Structures are given as C-alpha cells and as structure tokens.
C-alpha cells in the first residue's frame, strides 16, 4: 500500500471535517513518524482543507516533522534550570558532534536532535533524553561521549 492510500485510510474518520486538521496530522505522524508530501496532500484531500492551510499548520507547530525522523531521538532540554546550567553548550556540542542543527536528522539517519522545554527533572540539569532514557548532569564532553558511544 502506498503512502497516500495508507494516509487516506488513517484519516477516514475525519473525512470532510476541516476542523480536525491537527488531529488528523497527529494521527498520520504517529504512524509514519513524519509527514511526507504525499501524506499532506492526502490529508488535505480527505478533510477538504486547502493545501496551503495544511502547510501552514504543519510548518507552524514544531511538533510536526516534514523530514523523516532518525532512528533515535535526542531531546536536549533548554528549560529554565538547564538554560542556567549550560544547556546551550550541551546542545551545541551534540549538534557539532552529529553535524546537524536542532530539528534535523544526522546524515546516517541515526539521530534526530530536538530542543525541548523542561523534561521534568530539573535537579539533574542540564539534561537530555535519548529515546526514553534520561541523561543528567551533562557537560559538553560528557554529552559528546554518550552520543558517540550510543548503540
């Protein structure tokens, strides 16, 4: 089954309901991991929303991805506590190590790097998460090592 058919199937409950756009996109992304062009077109068609509006929503919210996600997701926290304790330096080290910018995926497709605001464990600041695992009390060197040795 092609992407378009799969998406049409997924968003069938929202047929003809333009107000459900965000719900529909959520659903598609939870299955595909991102929102390829064909998926956006299919959502527009089934819900009856102009393509330009689908694009507007997809690009407005950082949650929606227009590029495939990496195998693992690194979430670097830049919330207040992490910001104060050098979260930016951790983020820069990781981005430098993987040669990506926040929101991008490394060339080998292994890691996507995301910036988040608070992971709820400020006592460990600065923190990051790789998939479901939390890494705390980081510094640039430690963060680089974790990413390098992650398998």
């Amino acid at each position, binding site marked *: 089954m092609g992407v378009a058919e799969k998406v049409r199937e997924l968003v069938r409950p929202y047929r003809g309901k333009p107000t459900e756009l965000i719900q529909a996109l959520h659903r598609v992304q939870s299955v595909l991991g991102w929102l390829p062009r064909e998926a*956006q077109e299919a959502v527009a068609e089934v819900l009856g929303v102009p*393509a*330009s509006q689908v694009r507007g929503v997809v*690009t*407005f919210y950082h949650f929606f991805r227009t590029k495939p996600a990496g195998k693992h997701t690194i979430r670097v926290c830049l919330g207040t506590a992490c910001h104060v304790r050098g979260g930016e330096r951790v983020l820069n080290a990781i981005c430098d190590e993987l040669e990506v910018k926040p929101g991008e995926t490394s060339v080998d497709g292994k890691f996507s790097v995301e910036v988040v605001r608070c992971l709820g464990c400020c006592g460990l600041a600065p923190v990051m998460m790789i998939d479901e695992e939390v890494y705390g009390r980081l510094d640039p060197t430690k963060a680089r090592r974790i990413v390098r040795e992650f398998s």
Partner: protein
Amino acid sequence: MITLTIDGIKVQAEEGETILQAAKRAGIRIPTLCYLEGLSPRGACRLCLVEIRNWGGRLVPSCATPVQEGLEVVANSPRLRELRRTILEMIFAERNHICAFCVSNGHCELQDLAMELGMDHVRFPYRWPLLFVDLSHEKYGIDHNRCVLCGRCVRACSEVEGAMTWGFSNRGIFTLVEADLGDPWGKSTTCTGCGKCVQACPTGALFEKGKATSEQVKKPEIILEVTERRPRV
C-alpha cells in the same frame, strides 16, 4: 445608530461598523497597511491603532474594533504618531525595503506611510535576511524580501478568488507567504493566475513580470470593485 466621538468630532455609525469605517466617513484619516476594503480585517500591522479614552487609554486596532455608543476615540495624537512610526521602523528593519531598486518605488503603500508619518530614519538594526525570489509563475513574481506579511494577498486569494493558493508557512520572523504545499508559484495546481494578489499587495513583493524599477503600479481598489459587483445573498 451609534454616536461616538473621534478626535473630538461627533460621528454617527451603524451598529457593526468599525471605528476605521466611521472615521473614514467623518473625513478623519487613520493610516492602514494590512487593511484593504473588500477583505476581512486582520488587525495584523497595528498601524491603525487608536486610543480609547473611556477604556483607560487602551490601544485597539480601529480596522477590527466595532463602534460602541459613547466611545471617545483618539485617532491622531503625538503618542499615536510615535507608535505608528515605531511600527513602521520595525517593518522596515525586518526585511529589505530599499526603495531605490524596487519595482513599486513611487507606487508603494509602505513608502507612502513612511513619508506621511515622517519616518526619516530607522532606530533598529536592519535584519536583511537573504530570502528568495520566485519567478516560476508565467505572469507574476514574488520577492519575499519586500513582503510585509500583511496577508492581503492571502485574503484576496481565499476570500475573493476562492482559490486558497496562498498561505502562511513557518512562523515568527521565518514566516513566508507560500503557494499550496510550499511549491514554486508556477507549479501551483490551485492558482488561477487571476492576479488579485498582485493588485492587493501594498509593496513590491508581488509584481507583474516585465516591470522594471518604479514601473509597478498597483490597483488595490479592484478588490472592493469585484466584491461589490457580487450579488448580495
């Protein structure tokens, strides 16, 4: 009928009319940029801000605020002039608005406003991001560097033409007006090529191909003409 005062002048207005419309009829000038007759008001540019005396001096966009009985509106004052000039300065600082090389030089609403409000310099650092120019359309072009994100093209496209080709993508300072799913304009499957967006655009961001510096004259009034000609339902 509702009675209110604007700059000390008693003005009568219909229920549902905006302060801007009432002021216009009374011959009181309020500068506007994102507002265009025939399109829904957006309140995006904030140039039409007015002060409401009996709301504790609150500032509201007159294009999107309905009249109310007994309102005391200040439409022109040194404070408002300064605010409007500051807003203009921020618009000028955000992208490239160097008039000398613009197709709309001399026929530009942004330029006219700068002259009207006496904006002779900009106190903010110019950002000048390097944005692209899309010339893929057969008849028209879009230069994002000249765009002020007023959304008149977007509204003309959806409310008057009904094509809904244009939309805003991204957000904040990265916002762009883009066609369909971010395609080159010429590749758009929904664009009818009607050109209403070009006529509605207040600056040189949207232009007809083949126009050189200063040659692009716009006819934003066609938007109202087209909508008025429609039968009322």
